[in-house]
C-alpha cells in the first residue's frame, strides 16, 4: 500500500527571505496587517510502497548525506502529515513549480545514487507558514489565499499561478494530540 513521508527543512536562524516577504505583505498588500509572522520551509514529500523501515532508512540518509539538510544551518523534522505539529492558528501554503524540477532531480538522485528501496516518488514544495493575529478571524485559508496568490500588481505575493501550483491548508492539531 502506497504511503507518504514528509520532510520539512528550515533555517535555524530567522529566514531573511521569509522576513522580506513578511514585510512586503504587511506593507503592500491589502489585509497584510493581519499577518503576524511568515516562515518558510523546504517541503519534501516521499511516496513509498509502504514497506517497514522506509522512514528509518530516510532518517539515516537525511542525517548522514547532506543531500537535503546541512546540519550547520538547517533544522528538520519528519512527519506523516506536514499539516500537523505547528504552533497556534496558521495557514500553510505549499508552492510547487508546475513541472517540479527539484522533486524530479531529487528522485533521480535517490534512485540512481542512493538506491533507496521502496521509493516511488519525490515531490518538492516551498512551504510558507502564515501565522495570523487572533483578530484575523476564522477563515484563515481564504485570507492566506488573498495574501499569497499573485494575480495582480496589488495582490498576493507568494505564488505566481502562471507556473506554480499551490495547496492552502489550515494547520491541524499535532499528531500526539490527535491520538
Amino acid at each position: 500500500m502506497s504511503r507518504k513521508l514528509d520532510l520539512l527543512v528550515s533555517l535555524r536562524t530567522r529566514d531573511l527571505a521569509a522576513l522580506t516577504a513578511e514585510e512586503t505583505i504587511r506593507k503592500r498588500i491589502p489585509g497584510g496587517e493581519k499577518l503576524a509572522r511568515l516562515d518558510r520551509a523546504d517541503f519534501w514529500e516521499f511516496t513509498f510502497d509502504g514497506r517497514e523501515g522506509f522512514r528509518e532508512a530516510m532518517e539515516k540518509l537525511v542525517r548522514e548525506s547532506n543531500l537535503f539538510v546541512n546540519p550547520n544551518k538547517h533544522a528538520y523534522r519528519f512527519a506523516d502529515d506536514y499539516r500537523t505539529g505547528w504552533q497556534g492558528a496558521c495557514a500553510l501554503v505549499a508552492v510547487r513549480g508546475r513541472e517540479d524540477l527539484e522533486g524530479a532531480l531529487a528522485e533521480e538522485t535517490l534512485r540512481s545514487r542512493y538506491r533507496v528501496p521502496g521509493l516511488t516518488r519525490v515531490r518538492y514544495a516551498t512551504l510558507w507558514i502564515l501565522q495570523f493575529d487572533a483578530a484575523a478571524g476564522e477563515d484563515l485559508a481564504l485570507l492566506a489565499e488573498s495574501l499569497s496568490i499573485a494575480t495582480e500588481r496589488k495582490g498576493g505575493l507568494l505564488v505566481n499561478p502562471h507556473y506554480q501550483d499551490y495547496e492552502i491548508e489550515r494547520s491541524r492539531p499535532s499528531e500526539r494530540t490527535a491520538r
Partner: protein
Amino acid sequence: MRARAAVIQFPGVNCEFESARVLRELGLEADIVGWNEPIDLAARYGGFLLPGGFAYQDRVRAGAIASREPVLTALAEAAAAGAPILGICNGAQILVEAGLVPGLREGKIEAALAPNRMPHRTGYHCAWVHVVCRGGRSFLSRAEGIVGKPFPIPIAHAEGRFVSREPALFDQLLEEGMIPLRYVSPSGEPTALHPYCPNGSTLGAAALSNREGNVVAMMPHPERAFYLYQVPDTLPCEWGERKAGLAAGAGSLFDPGPGRAVLAAFADAVREGGK
C-alpha cells in the same frame, strides 16, 4: 536640451552603472535613481530602464518583491502615458511580475518568468545565444540593422522562461506583434529548444512588449554586447568574425556590438517622447 532617462536602482541590481553609461553614449542624459527616491519620475524623465541584477536577492521569485514597490505604480502610470520602459533581465522579471508586460488587462499579472528548463539540471545559466527581431509593435522594431537578421547577445539568468497558464496567450502575443525578440537556431528559425533557446521559453520568446509597444521586457543583456570588444571572437557568425578581424587591425574595440542597436532604439523612443 537632451532627453533624460532614469535607470531604476533596486537593492540588489548590479547592471545600473553600465546601463546608464551606454545610454549616455547614445546621447541621453541618464541618472541612476533609487527605487525609493521621493521624486516625480514622470515629470523629470522621458524614459525608464530597469537594469539587470538580483533585486531583493530574488527572494520569493525573481522580481516579485520589487514589483510590489510603489515605484512600479509610478512606472505603470508613466507607461500608460506613453513613456518608453525597457526592462533587462531582472528588470524584465520585475515588469512581468508587476503586470506591465504583456499588460493586456490593466494591473493583472498575465505571465511569468519561470525557472529555466534545461537538460539534467536547474538553476543559473549564462551563454551567448542568437535572437531575431521580426518587427512588431515595440520600439525594437525600429532597431537599425538587426530587424529580421539574427544577432548574438548574452543571457545570464535562472528564471528566464516566459510562460502563462493561458494556453493561447503566446499565440495571441505573436499574432499581435508583442514578442519582439525570439531565440533562433543556427538556421535562423525561432526555437524553444535547448541550447539555442537557453531556458525553454514559450515560442522561444526572449522578450515581450505591451500592446502599445512602449514597454519591453527582454531577458538578454544588450548592454553586455554594446561594444565590439564584448563580443567573443569565437562566435560562429559575422559578429565573431568582426571581432576576430580586430587582431588584423580592422576596426576598433569600441566599434558597435550587436546590442547597441537595441539600446539605440530605446534611446530614440525616449527622444521622440515615446511615440
